């Protein structure tokens, strides 16, 4: 049986075939036997050549969350629509122009108004969550095109706050 996953934006292909009490695993490069069991709904025990791995796995609507040997992984099925898992660095041009709430919270201040010119790193708004203020800054030089929220609004993660327009220089 063949499976495909997106792990940290890399496509991983893997095949499993059951054989007696073992699985024959192939990851494209190598093929090996693995002794795999659920030990509880969120814990999988894997033995590969006598090496023991305890893998923790949980699921929500979009992702599987995996922890093993000190590392966390977010595992997605490639068919899943929507945003991939992106670190702070890997923003697309669209993300730069559409400033979104970085986490669920409350808009406590909007520092700019529509049409206003903004510098790079200028604070556009402040969102508070868990009692810490987080300044939302512009990553470009440009203009405020549209503001979607008001002070006091509760916003969810990825909720658009402000749309920017780049300065053509």
């Amino acid at each position, binding site marked *: *049986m063949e*499976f495909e*996953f997106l*792990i*940290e934006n*890399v496509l*991983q292909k*893997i*095949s*499993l075939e059951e054989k007696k009490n073992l*699985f024959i*695993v192939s*990851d494209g490069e190598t093929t090996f036997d*693995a002794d*795999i*069991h*659920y*030990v*509880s*709904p*969120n*814990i*999988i025990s*894997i033995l590969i050549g006598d090496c023991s*791995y305890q*893998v*923790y*796995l*949980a*699921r*929500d609507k979009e992702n*599987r*969350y*995996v*922890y*093993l*040997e*000190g*590392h*966390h*992984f977010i*595992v997605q099925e490639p068919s899943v629509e929507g945003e991939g898992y992106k*670190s*702070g660095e890997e923003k697309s041009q669209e993300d730069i122009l559409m400033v979104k709430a*970085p*986490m*669920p*919270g*409350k808009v*406590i*201040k909007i520092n700019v108004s529509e049409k206003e010119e903004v510098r790079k790193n200028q604070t556009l708004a*402040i969102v*508070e*969550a*868990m*009692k*810490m*203020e*987080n300044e939302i800054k512009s990553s470009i030089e440009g203009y405020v095109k549209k503001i979607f929220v008001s002070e006091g609004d*509760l916003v969810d993660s990825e909720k658009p706050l402000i749309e920017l327009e780049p300065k053509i220089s």
Partner: protein
Amino acid sequence: MFKKILIANRGEIAVRIIKACQEIGIRTVAVYSEVDRKSLHVQTADEAVCIGPAPAIESYLNMDRIIQAAHDKDAEAVHPGYGFLAENAEFARLCEREKIVFIGPNSRALKLAGDKVRSRQTIEKAGIPIIPGMKGFYKDISNYDDEARRIGYPVMIKASAGGGGKGMRIVSSAKELKPALEAGMREAKSAFGNESVYLEKYIEEPRHVEFQVLADNYGNIVHLFERECSIQRRHQKIVEETPSQALDPELRLKMGEIAKKVMQVTGYNNAGTVEFLLDKDKNFYFLEVNARLQVEHPVTELTTGVDLVHLQISIASGEKLPFTQDELEQKGHAIECRIYAEDPLNNFLPSSGKVLFFKEPRGPGVRHDCGIYSGCDVPIFYDPILAKLIVWAEDREKACQRMINALNDYVILGIKTTIDFLKDVINHPQFRQGETTTGFIKNNLDGWKGKEKSKEKQSLAALAAAFDSFNKTYTRTGTAAEKKEIYSPWLMLGKWRLGGG
């Protein structure tokens, strides 16, 4: 001794206090906001009263509702924990007026500790070294500008009403002062219901060393040695330990005596902490009194063998201190790591949501003070602290090894936490050598990216996910469950399993 205590807090500290009460046969009343119905402290307490909507200002900071709950439930005393109303002199006064024992210092001492400017004056008068800072309070922001110039930049903005990094800002030049003051005041207001802030000279690269003090109602005062809390981010402590690597017995003795003197001249009772900054030349400056149980109190408990919550309660009920300074000693080494719901890969943004799976570490020398469980929700409204992991061992190196091991054994899935970041703090050579200053994180772990994940580990993660999908497919068709003894989530359902079976 009290028969029933109301705990005016939530999360790990509320659970810690509830369990301490249960041990000594005191019934407990929890209070909770509407989003906290399923929180661990509500489940753990004997009784639980809803005191309002989610925002803290309408619930955990709502003094009238809390006093009313205490009266309704016949609670004789209130334990405020840390944060929220813990250092609110008005609340302490209200309790006194309503004949409810406030488990903490008397309201006068609390007011003095909360008034950082006046308490600095009192301390300075007693001949204790303090950091140069503001002599008074001002309504007008321009006055702060004058004070900052007098003290000399860089200066530090601090909230008068509390600690924990809330409201704190370092300002290195005059033009940064105004926005920083505004932000600091807003944070202070939101965290403590009081926007007062003050300025202090910023001392570069100091160690943060504090002394735990206990004073009963009869003038007996002891200190329980120091805690070093230099590992901070955004002025928020994240790793604490005792003993401090910077203190020798002589310095420890001297600072401990001064800590007791601070308690004495401020008319303090119950548990408190005297914070100092220690500079490179081992000069120390009084910083402030934390007039509450500290987040980091367990490291003191593990090395001295006392239970600070039990002692807080017995002091508040009028008992004398059960030991003298001579009878106290430090044994071994303890380290605490605070587990925050923050994403260290994304500028430590708070991470609320559902904890899908949670497995806590255990073992010899491992203590875990915890407010969460598998399946709980972490709301956006409160402090991001989830739990505290504390280890004890014979010496510092063994404690570090034990902490690393425990952190590796600690699994939280579904929300982001600081666990992986903490491993790299404890594993850092500078930390291992005890070279800890408040600049440690900024100097050593700025822009932290986490460990490289090997191809092999990626494959293993894919294998686990594939196995999970494999069983899902098989179980859907109703064969796997019968065929082999896999432990699929569906098998948990027993005879009510839906679908093909």
